[in-house]
């Protein structure tokens, strides 16, 4: 009886000490997972997830603070990728309608040159200066919609990218197998 107690206690103390030593001496900072998460996120910096930008959201996900399905532009596809990376269960976002890619367009007649949208743009895609008309560099614009609320004259609209033979996509072949999906 006593032998058992002593042996088990001894084992426990020895292992506890070893663990404590290891925890102290092999402590590591930083989390490489956050980088990998960040690489999956679409980098629109739209903050729709509730975090100020993609990197902070990535860090929140990495430290298990945030759900993996908060990213609106990433959609279900992105959430699935995150689930795969982190070995977590995939949760659908609920919203199934995928928005086509849009870019901001400034109505140059209405713009008063207040520079508020320039300050809001997370990727510096709007150029112009005070009292001058602004314009969106559509090649860089991520369509994050952050420039919409600050505009005092509502001269910014999001427009769909025009279809060209370059960005035209072949559709998923219609299969004859499934009569009822």
């Amino acid at each position, binding site marked *: 009886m006593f*032998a*058992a107690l002593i*042996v*088990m206690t001894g*084992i*426990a103390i020895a*292992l506890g000490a*070893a*663990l404590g030593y*290891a*925890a102290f*001496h*092999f*402590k*590591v900072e930083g989390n*490489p997972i956050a980088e990998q998460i960040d690489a999956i996120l679409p980098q629109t910096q739209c903050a729709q997830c509730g975090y100020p930008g993609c990197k902070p959201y990535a860090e929140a996900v990495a430290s298990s603070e945030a759900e993996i399905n908060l990213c609106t532009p990433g959609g279900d596809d992105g959430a699935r990728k995150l689930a*795969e990376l982190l*070995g977590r269960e995939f949760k659908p976002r609920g919203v199934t309608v995928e928005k086509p890619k849009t870019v901001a367009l400034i109505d140059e007649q209405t713009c008063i040159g207040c520079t508020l949208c320039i300050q809001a743009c997370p990727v510096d895609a709007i150029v112009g200066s005070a009292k001058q008309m602004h314009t969106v560099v559509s090649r860089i614009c991520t369509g994050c919609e952050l420039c919409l609320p600050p505009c005092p004259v509502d001269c910014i609209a999001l427009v769909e990218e025009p279809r060209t033979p370059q960005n035209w996509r072949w559709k998923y072949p219609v299969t004859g*197998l499934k009569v009822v999906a």
Partner: protein
Amino acid sequence: MSYLFVVLSAVLVNNVVFVRILGLCPFMGVSKKLETALGMGMATTFVLTVASGTSYLIDHYLLAPFDIAYLRTLAFIIVIAAIVQITELVIHKTSPLLQQVLGIYLPLITTNCAVLGIPLLSAGLGHGLLESLLFGFGSAAGFTLALILFAGIREHLEGADVPLPFRGVPIAMMTAGFMSLAFMGFAGLDRFH
């Protein structure tokens, strides 16, 4: 030759997953992709080999002399849990490469019942130190094999038009069952001399 037999028997004939039906949690959980399956398998192999050896030492030099073999399960549990934790910490610090490969799987191994089951079986079979190590290694290799093969099939199944109620885990369970059936073909091989 007989040592080789211990390993082969543990890998194929008494495969830890398909015949002993141990370690099903990680088997189902970490077999969705081949890469992760491989990582999990390697981590398990490492831990199980070390755990088998350590368990033998604890059993032989601590529990047996004090005549408290009935505490085997308890003692093995804490020892293995601690080993896994320490291994993770050490690897995290010393080898970023290994950490990348094994890192996220090591904590999961604590919950792998095979890691406890194999040392217990080994102690029950009265294995020596080398036999215990080989038995642990062989079983873990069998686990890895099962995991990799299963992951290969599951990756392929992702493209299959599986009926809705069977999608995901149900069909994976069915597949595991069929694989188990296939491994029954090895039955009797370990008794042939």
